């Protein structure tokens, strides 16, 4: 389990065979990963491009589909709507998240851990939950609908509801990035500013904001991309405000027009890829903020500022909690808004009449498979890319493919899967309609962040481990099993949890891929809402939050336990 264990010399006679085996395994792993990403990511995306140039019968028609797209006013309108929605969501969410992160990292408010946990709660909920809650809150029979006219709105359906729901769903993603970018600051800059008598505002604009600008760009791009590709929110609360994600669904599911679906998918891909590239270019220019001479900045108490910030943080936390609790309340109310007595009928309806227990079971199975397989594949993949040698030409290709899912909206991935796997000519056609395709699409959909987490953890390990093992003729997998994996175990658990929670809540890719036997809990919310059964829809959404929360708590407990058992070196480590 320790470095010494790994560096024990291997027995000499088996060395040659081991080296050959290692040569094959190292390259084989890389080839396997590259071909996996090719089959489950790149080829399905390539199919979208191909199909967009074909007519329904499969004949090449050049740009005819694109011309028809541009000439269909309803479709062109939703492109504009999508960009408007995403822009407004970004402008709302990023400052909201920045101020929150600022309060946590740069002020002396109490109970920071609590606020931070509450801010991350939306990750546990399907975005549909937020949309349902805002109907309960601000719908025509909403609890707080009296507030709408104050904001100059006549109805929550459409853009207002979509932005409010998105502010819930994308908030934790923006806040995590900004928390990280505000976590470190050079105190010397602040001291210099104070010495020169700079005003607090000027200091904020000239010191704090510039140091967080890369985080701000990232947070903006993540929020924008999430909003562009969001499906559940506009489906439930979008009213007559069509967006591209809805158009894809209508074309592919409603009209089974896969070619036009492919065209809309490509259109949807453009803003997402632009955001991805902007972010990548900006991040490349980021230089280290902290140098060896830096002094970490620690906020000092300031009564007025801390007081105001605490009020703000409490308000934001209340926003997140109200959304979740509203759905939970809606799920136990007999008949909104006319009979507010308590009932479990909606849970019973969902489970018995609508046969949702089957969907919930499927969701659990899928989430567990995604967690186990996803964590294993992602971590092993990152290891192969970062820590093995040979087949160097493949590495950049694999790295690029590993980052690609971040730029691909789930709806687009889903339609790529239909086109690729449902083609009778494809030998992998047997996967279509199975649980396996749901697991594969979900792992690929959330691959990039997991891959990054794994790479970060692996990079913390000195490359010397591998060189020493190699020179001692210890096969790489022994080093992996004895050193790398145990050291990185907390990260592996994080990745597994990330896959589990996302698999419980996702709808975007799987809505195209589920079959009657593999329908999922998140999708059943969509169907119940469509049939007007909003109580049961709220019940299922609440159940998903409860499940994700339980699994999160359990996995954090497991992590804590493992850290104590196997990571004693972290505390005992002597200075290098």
């Amino acid at each position, binding site marked *: 389990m320790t470095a010494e264990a790994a560096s024990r010399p291997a027995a000499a006679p088996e060395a040659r065979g081991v080296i050959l085996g290692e040569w094959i*395994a190292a390259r084989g*792993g890389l080839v*396997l990963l590259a071909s996996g990403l090719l089959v489950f990511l790149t080829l399905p995306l390539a199919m979208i491009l191909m199909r967009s140039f074909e007519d329904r019968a499969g004949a090449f028609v050049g740009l005819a589909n694109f011309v028809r797209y541009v000439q*269909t*006013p*309803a479709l062109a*309108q939703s492109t504009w709507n999508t960009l408007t929605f995403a822009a407004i969501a970004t402008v709302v969410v990023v400052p909201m998240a920045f101020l929150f992160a600022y309060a946590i990292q740069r002020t002396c408010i109490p109970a920071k851990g609590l606020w931070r946990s509450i801010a991350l709660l939306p990750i546990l909920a399907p975005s549909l939950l937020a949309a349902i809650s805002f*109907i309960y809150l601000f*719908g*025509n*029979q909403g609890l707080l609908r009296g507030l709408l006219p104050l904001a100059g709105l*006549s*109805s929550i*359906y*459409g853009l207002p509801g979509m932005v409010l729901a998105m502010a819930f769903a994308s908030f934790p993603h923006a806040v995590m990035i900004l928390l990280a970018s505000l976590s470190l600051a050079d105190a010397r800059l602040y001291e210099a500013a104070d010495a020169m008598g700079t005003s607090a505002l000027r200091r904020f604009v000239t010191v704090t904001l510039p140091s967080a600008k890369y985080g701000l760009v990232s947070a903006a791009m993540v929020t924008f991309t999430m909003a562009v590709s969001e499906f559940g929110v506009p489906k439930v609360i979008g*009213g*007559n*405000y*069509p967006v591209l994600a809805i158009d894809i669904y209508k074309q592919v*599911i*409603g*009209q*089974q027009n*896969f070619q036009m679906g492919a065209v809309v998918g490509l259109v949807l891909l453009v803003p997402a890829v632009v955001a991805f590239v902007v972010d990548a270019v900006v991040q490349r220019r980021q230089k280290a903020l902290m140098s060896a001479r830096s002094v970490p900045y620690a906020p000092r108490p300031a009564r007025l500022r801390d007081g105001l910030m605490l009020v703000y943080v409490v308000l934001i936390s209340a926003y997140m909690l109200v959304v979740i609790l509203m759905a939970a309340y809606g799920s136990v109310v007999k*008949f*909104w*808004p*006319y009979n507010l007595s308590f009932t479990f009928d909606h849970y019973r*309806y969902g489970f*018995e*009449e*609508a*046969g949702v227990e089957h969907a919930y079971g499927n969701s659990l199975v899928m989430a567990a*498979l995604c967690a*186990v*397989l996803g964590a*294993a*594949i992602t971590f*092993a993949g990152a290891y192969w890319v970062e820590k093995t040698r040979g087949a160097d030409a493949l590495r950049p290709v694999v790295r690029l493919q590993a980052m690609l899912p971040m730029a691909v909206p789930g709806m687009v991935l889903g339609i790529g899967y239909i086109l690729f796997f449902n083609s009778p000519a494809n030998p992998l056609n*047997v996967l279509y309609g*199975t*649980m*396996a395709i749901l*697991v594969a699409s979900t792992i690929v959909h959330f691959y990039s962040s997991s891959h990054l987490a794994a790479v970060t953890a692996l990079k913390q390990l000195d490359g010397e481990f591998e060189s020493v093992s190699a020179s001692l003729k210890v096969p*790489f*997998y*022994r080093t*992996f*099993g*004895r050193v790398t*994996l*145990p050291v990185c175990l907390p990260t592996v658990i994080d990745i597994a949890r990330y896959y589990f929670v996302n698999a419980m809540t996702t709808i975007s890719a799987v809505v195209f891929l589920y079959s*009657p*036997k593999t329908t999922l809990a998140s999708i059943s919310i969509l*169907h119940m809402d*469509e*049939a*007007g*059964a*909003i109580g049961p829809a709220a019940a299922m959404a609440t159940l998903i939050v409860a499940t994700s929360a339980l699994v999160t708590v359990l996995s954090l407990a497991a992590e804590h336990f493992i850290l104590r058992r196997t990571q004693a070196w972290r505390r005992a480590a002597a200075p290098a």
Partner: protein
Amino acid sequence: MKPVHGLAWLASVAALAAVAAAPAAAQKTQLTVYTALETDQLKAYQEGFNKAHPDIEITWVRDSTGIITAKILAEKAAPKADVIMGVAATSMGLFDAEGLLLPYAPAGLARVAAQYRDPKNPPAWVGMDVWGATVCFNTVEAAKRNIPKPETWKDLTKPAYKGQIVMPHPASSGTGFFDVTAWLQLFGEAEGWKFMDGLHENIAQYMHSGSRPCAAAAAGEYVVGISFEYRANREKARGAPIELVFPKEGLGWDLEASGIVKTTQKLDAAKKLLDWSISDAAMALYANNFAIVAVPAMSKPLPNVPADYASRLVKNDFAWAAKNRERILAEWSKRYESKAAPK
């Protein structure tokens, strides 16, 4: 902890994936049935069928009429369904025209009224029941806003209803489609579209199922939900403050109908389902939900539905509706979907 061997690990990953992909071993005859029936009806029908045929297991593929119709047409080269049950007769007409259905005379066909089955012999499809237009009118919300109860379709174009009406989207919903075809047949093409132009001014949302507009009216989200009698009665039974309104000019309607898909490998089981679908046992189940069932003797009055319901239905030309489906939906979309969102 033992060192984990990379390849062994990979092998177990692959094995797990294979397990996940393997379809469950089948013991009973598995019948894939495409349907647009309501989720809360399916359970009773399935139990009824399994009481007679416990050896056949139905896998329902359920979606709204428009989606199921598009799916069946898209899969016509390699159909996945064995039976289509509870899908609009206008859609069945389309499938028949595409040669997708296997004509079959279910046992007891003579009991089915002539207007509720495909007139050919043997018929490509047979009806189960009639479902027809019903307006859900929320009396509590209407009283708050001083909105009068509508008596006719034309009433709904009055300014009093502005922003208070929801109806199903005709491309997604069978209910929405028969509303539109009924108006076109009642008022004539030109007048019909003019009526819908006026209605559009008052529509708050086009929804994607026939049920949701009534559920929305029942919950007071809107005052008027254009829907159908089954959902209206269900909502009223749950305690919703709604009244069922049957506009005077006439009600759009369609048949829920069933037929066998020509390519099925499970013909025996498919025939058993069709036989059951017009049996007295099945008709009794349909009669709990709908006022008119295909075997007239089995119809029974439904609460809140007038006794002369049958005579209020418009004369619906299924052949015309099926033939013009694509044209009507394109025209509808051009008029009402390409406009920027109202309000």
